[in-house]
Each structure stands twice: as structure tokens, then as C-alpha cells.
């Protein structure tokens, strides 16, 4: 095990990880770091390896080489959490949502901090009686906010978001994105957001990493990437997003 490269102790370091699926390489030599309270958006088209990256960081798939660490120790020790793309599938359809909220606390053997639950519910605009319902009895937007609540209840230092907005409608998207940003500035967790929505990434992330065919094509602060992408692919991605945005505005 190599020591962490940087002095900052609370930091996710992804160090040259590669993932192979059969013969194909789905992630190739990916490296980056992410500090507490910071947001990194990973953008790229479908099949670029975004979901594999999340699975690799969480230890759900094995890395062929390289490693992932939080503050110098294996990342699983800090119990990172995940907000999923399909909000409802993250909850057992047969159990009340409260069970899912309590699950991470039970596993850590800590009591439920009712004050924290109350304040999170308020910030996420979740009425307390929703907790007694089943996933099929709430809306998609509510389910995604419930997913965020579950991800934050045990105060993890690192939260991963897998396309957190893509299942939501436009209005709910904006609201949810703002809630995530507010909660992050309050709680100071490190956020890794995988998205295909460059507009969202540009508005809320500190850094943007462009993933293409399993490799990081470009890594830059959000503003400088939007102003002047350094690679041809980055250019193409940005221009496509802006053209789409212009079209949407025209329509």
C-alpha cells in the first residue's frame, strides 16, 4: 500500500485504476483526487465507463490494477454512500422507507440522531409521514430526495451521485440540484457526481473530468473547462451541450 501523495488527510485518491470486463478494458489508468467539501463532476457519453468508475470506487467491481483510498486507508472504511439513478429501485418495495433510512445507522451500531433526521428532512422538503410509506406510494422526486436523505443520514465524508437528476423532470431537477449543493456546503462532504448533463456539471462542480472510452480525456476546473476546453473532444462535448441548451431555450 502506497502512502497518500498529498498532505491533505481527508481526500479521495483514485490512483491509476484499470478495470477489465472479460477481454475489454472498461477503465484504463484513471487517476484523480477529490478533497472534502469539493465537487467533482465526471462527464462523458454513455458507455464511457462512468458507472464502472463508481462501482470501482465503491469496491463493487475489482480493479485489475491501481487502488482507491480515502485519507490513506481503503475507501470502504469511510463507508461512502451512493445516490442512484433510479430512485425507487434503491428501496425495497416491500418495506417502509424508514427501514432504508435506519439501515446504515444499524450497520454502524449508532442510534438515530432525531435532530439530524429532522433538519435533513426539512432541507430536503420531506414530510415526516412519508417515512412510513412504501416506495410505490411516493413520487419519483420524493424518492430521489429520500435517496439523498439515506445517503447523508450517517454523515459520510464521501457521497457518490450516479446521474442523480436524469430520472426527474426539469423543474424537480433544478430544485434537487440546488438542495444537493446547499447540503454539501453545510455538511462539507466530498461529492463525486457522474452525469451526462454538462450544464449541471458546469453550474455546481468545482472540477470537471471528461471520461472517454475508459480514460480521462481532460481534467480541469469547471470555469476554465467551459471557457476553453483543452482537447478536441472536450470542445465537441461543450459545443454540443451549448447547442442543445440553445435549442431548448429556443423551444
Amino acid at each position, binding site marked *: 500500500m502506497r502512502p497518500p501523495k498529498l498532505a491533505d488527510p481527508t481526500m479521495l485518491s483514485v490512483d491509476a485504476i484499470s478495470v477489465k470486463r472479460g477481454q475489454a478494458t472498461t477503465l484504463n489508468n484513471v487517476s484523480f483526487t477529490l478533497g472534502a467539501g469539493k465537487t467533482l463532476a465526471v462527464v462523458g457519453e454513455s458507455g464511457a465507463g462512468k458507472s464502472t468508475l463508481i462501482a470501482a470506487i465503491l469496491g463493487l467491481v475489482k480493479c485489475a490494477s491501481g487502488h482507491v483510498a480515502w485519507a490513506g486507508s481503503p475507501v470502504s472504511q469511510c*463507508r*461512502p454512500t*451512493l445516490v442512484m439513478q433510479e430512485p425507487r429501485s*434503491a428501496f*425495497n418495495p416491500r418495506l417502509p422507507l424508514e427501514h432504508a433510512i435506519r439501515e*446504515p445507522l444499524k450497520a454502524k451500531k449508532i442510534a438515530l440522531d432525531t435532530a439530524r433526521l429532522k433538519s435533513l428532512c426539512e432541507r430536503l422538503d420531506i414530510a415526516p409521514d412519508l417515512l412510513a410509506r412504501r416506495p410505490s406510494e411516493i413520487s419519483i422526486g420524493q424518492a430521489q430526495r429520500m435517496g439523498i436523505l439515506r445517503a447523508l443520514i450517517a454523515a459520510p465524508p464521501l457521497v457518490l451521485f450516479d446521474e442523480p437528476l436524469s430520472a426527474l423532470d426539469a423543474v424537480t431537477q433544478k430544485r434537487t440540484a440546488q438542495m444537493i449543493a446547499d447540503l454539501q456546503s453545510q455538511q462539507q462532504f466530498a461529492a463525486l457526481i457522474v452525469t451526462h448533463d454538462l450544464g449541471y456539471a458546469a453550474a455546481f462542480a468545482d472540477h470537471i473530468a471528461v471520461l472517454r472510452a475508459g480514460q480521462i480525456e481532460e481534467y480541469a476546473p469547471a470555469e476554465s473547462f467551459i471557457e476553453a476546453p483543452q482537447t478536441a473532444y472536450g470542445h465537441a462535448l461543450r459545443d454540443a451541450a451549448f447547442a442543445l441548451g440553445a435549442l431548448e431555450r429556443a423551444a
Partner: protein
Amino acid sequence: MRSVWAVAMLLVSLSLLGPLLAPYDPTAIGLANRLSGPSGDNLLGTDALGRDILSRLLHGARWSLGLAFVISVLGLIIGTLAGVLAAQGGKVVDWSVMRVTDTFLAFPELIAAVVIAGVLGAGTGSLVFALTVTGWMRYARVARGIGLSLQTRGYVVQARLAGVSMASIAWWHYLPSLLPSLVVVWTGMFARAILGISALGFLGFGVQPPTPEWGTMLLDARIHMRSTPLQMIWPGLTVVFCVLAINLAGDTLRDALAQEEKQL
């Protein structure tokens, strides 16, 4: 679903209350009244030792149905544990558990049960052991299949990420999803256990006389087929009736659960 409850009630009351309803002691020998046909005193007649057949059938329910219940529930527990273990334990555990399951499935169950019960020596203990050991594999297959498909569900991934223990995941997330399918398998295995008990009894490897058990009664009756064929009809009809009722209840249950699954 009402018919399912009706069948369940009928079988439970038959095995619990059966002995109370019996008009005579099932082991009371009356040599003066051997092999008599149905009459006012003995509604279904008497056997070769003059014992009342109706009383023996009613007392036998406790053995035939009760043992079948015990055997099928033991199989349910063992098979579910094995299947969930295979689904959760990773590739090596999965491979090993499934090869053991294959080995047990690689042999006609009833023949295996005959060999095991026969070699261990006839008796109720050997009978239960033999039919349980040969009767858990279907549960394991079903539990593993559903378990593997649950493994990638969002809520199971979330639970694993949160560090929830395997036992807790199995209890909260696996069992509720497995149970409906396992109950349907169980009805089939319950019926099979009834058939298995009576088959082993008939071959002489099961419950031993003078305990009244339907298969053993058939074995006794077989010798007197020419003189009193009716004696052989009753225990067989009882087995057919019970197995048929359980199978039909199982079909109804399966359809109802499939309907419910669709709505979820």
C-alpha cells in the same frame, strides 16, 4: 385463495382431530371380526387382524400428514439456507453449494430415500432423515435463482454498501422476496412427502407396524387383495385425496402470488 385456506384447515384438523374422531382404538385386535366388509359397526370394514380401518385411517393422518409436514418444512429450511448462501457467498461458495445440490439431484429422490432409509434401518427417524436429505434441493435452486437476481437490485447494493451484515440482508431483503415462491415449492414438496412416506411404508422401510400409516396399511392390505379388495382402496383413496387437494391449493396459490407480484 379461499379454497387454499379450506384445504389447509381440512388437513390441519384431519391430523389434529382425526384421532379424536376415530370410533375405535386403531391397534385393538379383534380376531373374531377379521377382514369384514363395511358395516354399521365398522364403516370401512376391518383388516386382517380385525382392526377398524376407519380408525386406522384417522389415526394414520397424524403420521402421514404430520411427518410430511415436518419433512417438507425441514427441507424448506435447509434448502433456503443453502440457496441464500450460494447467492450471497460469491463464486466459490456458489459453485460448491450448487455442485452438492447437483449431486443430490443426480439421483432419483425416491430411490435415494429407499437406500438411505433401508440402510439406516426401518423406523420413523430413518424415514424422516431419508426424505429430508433427498428433499431440499428444489428449494435451494429456487432460492439461489431469485437470490442471484436480487443481488444487483438497488436496495441490496445499498445495504451492502452501508455494511449491513449478510444475515441481516438475507432476513430483510431476501426472505420476503423468496417466501412466496418457496411456499409454492413447499406445497409441491408437501404432496411429494406424503407420497414418499407412503411409498417407503409400502416397501416396508417406513413407519413400522402396528403404528397406522397409510402406506403401511396398503402393504398389509395387498396380501388380501383377492378376498377383500376394498381394504386396499381406502388408504390409497385417502392419499390421492390429500395429494390432489394440496396440489390444487398450490396451483391456486401460485396464480394468486403471480398476480400479486405483477402489482408490486
